[in-house]
């Protein structure tokens, strides 16, 4: 049941317990308990809203930053990762296999603000060898949702 609940709320966190119970053929109380348990275990870590900021008048830029770092003895990458993720403007930090070590995503009001963060804060951290900043120009798809076009039902209205 967990997998089914997660599959649904990952796409629609606003669905209420009653409706979840109906479409999964389960009891409301069981769904409520399962959700609570998953929140406590940290399986569910938050409920977010997907926003296409492009369509608002609010200026926002998102950057992906590749960071190469020197792992520290006994700490590996964790220590530096922590120093990076503590900045509130940092959206996500992933340890990556391949040509660099950390992938950091960052949101700022402007290119200037993001650049300033990278040059002042990120690249000056001890252990950071180099950074490469990529600004996102257009989001086609995010969190499994296509942002560039709306679903349109093109089927015939009545078919056998």
């Amino acid at each position, binding site marked *: 049941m967990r997998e089914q609940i997660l599959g649904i709320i990952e796409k629609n966190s606003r669905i209420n317990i009653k409706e979840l119970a109906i*479409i999964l053929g389960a009891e409301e109380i069981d769904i409520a308990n399962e959700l609570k348990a998953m929140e406590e275990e940290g399986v569910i870590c938050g409920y977010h809203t997907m926003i296409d900021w492009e369509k608002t008048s609010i200026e926002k830029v998102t950057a992906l930053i590749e960071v190469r770092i020197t792992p520290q003895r006994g700490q590996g990458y964790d220590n530096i990762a922590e120093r990076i993720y503590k900045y509130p403007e940092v959206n996500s930090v992933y340890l990556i296999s391949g040509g660099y070590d950390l992938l950091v995503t960052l949101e700022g009001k402007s290119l200037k603000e993001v650049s300033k963060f990278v040059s002042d804060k990120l690249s000056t951290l001890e252990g950071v060898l180099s950074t490469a900043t990529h600004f996102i120009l257009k989001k086609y798809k995010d969190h499994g949702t296509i942002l560039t076009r709306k679903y349109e039902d093109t*089927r015939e209205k*009545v*078919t056998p």
Partner: protein
Amino acid sequence: MRNPLSETIVTIKPSGIRKFFDIVNEMEDAISLGVGEPDFDTPWHIRDEGIYSLEKGRTFYTSNAGLKELKVEITKYIERSQDVSYDADHEVIVTVGGSEAIDIALRAMVDPGDEVLIPQPSYVSYEPCAILAGAKPVIIELKEENEFRLTAKELREAITDKTKILILPFPNNPTGAIMEKEDLEAIAEIIREKDLFVISDEIYAELTYKEKHVSIISLPGMRERTVLINGFSKAYAMTGWRLGYACAPREIMEQMLKIHQFAIMCAPTTSQYAAVEALRNGDGDVAMMRESYNQRRRFLMHAFKEMGLSCFEPYGAFYVFPCIKEFGMTSEEFANRLLQEEKVAVVPGTAFGDCGEGFLRISYAYSIENLKIALEKINAFITRLRKEQQ
């Protein structure tokens, strides 16, 4: 001028769905629950294979019976789902949808005067195809009290010494009924005893919500007297690709192949390449869609219960078949008024046979958001009808 038309075709009624389609189509903002096809797009990796095959210039005919690799994948699929094996070279044919398979199976197996048993309510093409093949269709009226399953008693009563074929349309469009193993066993016993054949249309085989679909071919002695029909439309959301298939003993298949090669030549090549990918790597997509349909099915059943609209619980396909007899209207009247007054389109049960009278086919190949809006309108409609009745 002489009459240019064949008497046979002139006597066949056009599909009841067509009439309703024309009405709905004129209404711009109608919400439809009348569609008999998935709302999902064909999974991208399958479409991608189709596109790739075009890029590679695979734009020629395939052999009449279909691409060898596709026929092999089909036999593997039947082997893993039903534990029955077919010879990919002589017992499988790839057709233009399940519909072609129904037509050529009938034409390969009946002579004038033979009787073909057709349980109804069911898909619209069995009866006309039987007539066009020269046979006499004999309708078995399925009952709601049996959850629209075919019972041994009903079958036995319909058999005469002219009966040759039983059409077995489960999981069923429009009722959503399924036949479970015990149900099929009772049928199979009679088929063997009376030396009949079965055309088993299992196009919705992947869409069952109780236990996995059991095919009659998996029962003792039935593989040799059955034409199994399936396809890609419903399981993989590939209706527009027009691709189905049939499996049958070699003796029957050889004759079906003749009709197919003269009338059709071969199924669309692009679709066949895409279908290979569907069977090889599409199980996850099918499971995802099945789960999604099941959620909507539960949602609808729950909503009907709350409205007090009587409906047996269907475990297959993507239709529910609620009963509207309490309102004292024919299915067609009900559907028409619902369309005019609330702009919701559902299909009258009578489009699938006279015994569909008193029922509606409601498709849940729509998002839950869509279903919610439509259900609210249906609820408003029936509340009004009940008030009128008082």
